[in-house]
């Protein structure tokens, strides 16, 4: 996959009255990434997306898509969903998509395929207002996919959906991501970002607190649970090692933390070398939630 830059944001600022919705935001999003923009409600996610889509005028700063300034032609390369699905309630799925196709100047013949992909083909002739929320959201994804755009922007794509709907949308996003499309997804659901995204930026009050790959954020601080036949021996071996930090003991189970340079496999090799026979080893990755809360705490 090439790592050419899809979107670069330089010092974007937007102020609504006295509130700074977005403050000097810097971001680079490369081709092929599934990029999560994570932050609590009101952290400036939608405002940021609104600005890069030309819906909101930035007070300061600039951004480029594919190295070019924003234009209607660039927008036709980007499929997007912002917040709620926005369609004419009295028009059918097909008619609504035809309007979008006219705007994007693409042919109607890809409509059946898209409607099948999002599972709305059977209901394509029914008015949008008769759809469930999940169907509406799926139609929005179909609209975003029209014209086979290079980049997909999804703002809270699973908002308000039931668990089944959420699972369907996630599967759909991953499926699209596997086709090599770049996806930019805003969400306040950590779990969602963790499950879907390759990269993440954490926003709070319009400020970017962290930006990097999800695996990097997840790998610093793997905590492990170990137990061995001989607990005492295990404890002494662990205490002797520099890169293992003892976190605590719960019965026979010992909790440890590894430093960044060593993996659970390294621990296993070390213990075997030391003649410790373990009968339990499990890695409990800190969830993104823990990281997220830590990042937020650091700033406070």
């Amino acid at each position, binding site marked *: 996959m090439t790592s050419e830059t899809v979107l670069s944001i330089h010092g974007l600022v937007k102020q609504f009255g006295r509130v700074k919705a977005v403050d000097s935001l810097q971001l680079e999003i490369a081709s092929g990434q599934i990029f999560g923009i994570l932050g609590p409600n009101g952290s400036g996610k939608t405002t940021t997306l609104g600005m890069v889509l030309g819906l909101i005028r930035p007070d300061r700063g600039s951004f480029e898509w594919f190295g070019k300034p924003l234009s209607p032609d660039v927008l036709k390369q980007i499929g997007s969903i912002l917040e709620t699905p926005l369609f*004419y309630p009295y028009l059918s799925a097909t*008619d609504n998509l035809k309007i979008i196709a006219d705007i994007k100047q693409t042919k109607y013949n890809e409509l059946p395929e898209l409607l099948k992909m999002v599972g709305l083909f059977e209901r394509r002739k029914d008015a949008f207002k008769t759809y469930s929320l999940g169907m509406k959201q799926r139609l929005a994804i179909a609209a975003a996919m029209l014209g086979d755009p290079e980049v997909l922007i999804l703002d809270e794509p699973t908002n308000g959906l039931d668990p089944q709907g959420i699972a369907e949308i996630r599967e759909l996003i991953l499926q699209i991501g596997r086709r090599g499309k770049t996806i930019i997804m805003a969400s306040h659901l950590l779990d969602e970002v963790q499950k879907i995204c390759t990269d993440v930026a954490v926003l709070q009050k319009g400020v970017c607190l962290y930006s990097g790959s999800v695996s990097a954020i997840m790998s610093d601080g793997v905590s492990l649970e170990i137990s061995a036949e001989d607990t005492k021996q295990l404890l002494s071996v662990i205490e002797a090692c520099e890169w293992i930090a003892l976190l605590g003991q719960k019965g026979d189970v010992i909790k440890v933390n590894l430093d960044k340079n060593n993996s659970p496999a390294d621990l296993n090799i070390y213990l075997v070398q030391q003649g410790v026979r373990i009968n339990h080893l499990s890695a409990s990755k800190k969830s993104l939630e823990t990281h997220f809360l830590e990042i937020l705490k650091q700033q406070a």
Partner: protein
Amino acid sequence: MKRLSKIAFRKLYKSRVFWIMLLLYAVSMSGMLFGVEAFINKIASNTGKNSPIPIPDFSLYEFPYIWHNLSYLAGFLKLFPALILMVFVAADYSYRTNRMQMMMGLSRTEYFFTQVLLVLALAIISALLLVFWAMAKGLVHSTDLNVGSIFGKSYFVAAYFLELIAFLSFALLLVTTLRKSGLSIIAFSISFIAIEPIIRVYVPDVVAQNMPFKRIGSMIDVPNTSLMQLFGFNFKTYIDLSDLAITLLYTILFLVLTYWIIKRRDL
């Protein structure tokens, strides 16, 4: 332009509300243009009974005067297309489909032109209705059927068309500013019926005469029928070029302001 009209048309053609409103408009317009003579004649003959001077029989539907008469009458219903315009332009704001369309790559300029197309469509529909009834009634009721007489004053249709465009442009500006259909309709009606007339009372005559509704409305003056002459009125029987120019200027002003708002606004 073809693409934009397709987009504008697709939004509306399956909306039942749109067709019902349009039908109601067409019916009331037809009713008015078709039935007005009987109505006026009834009043005239009633008045005639008590009048010391006999009121002559006259026809509204005589070529070429019919163009003036019907254009003037059709003007009374111009609130109707303004209503349709405001309802459907506001719909784009309340469904926020305009936001959707712009992020899908419809430029703000193109979006503005889809609105202008709706203004044009409504004005064309109205003008066609007017032409249809003028021709139908004129051909039935006129005795003089040479081409010069038939089309003699048909330029009143063009003036009516411009009057509507100007009027609808103001409606477009209001609804673009306010974004809510109910609010816009109320604001529009009040400014048309009350605000401007009240302002006209308090400002110098020159200003009053050039207020938008006044000037737009006075382009087609009250038809100078024999009945009116009888009462001693003397209205314009032609289209004044200065009226035309100022109406045109207002139209441009309204549209430029609308465009400016669309171009600048955060969605």
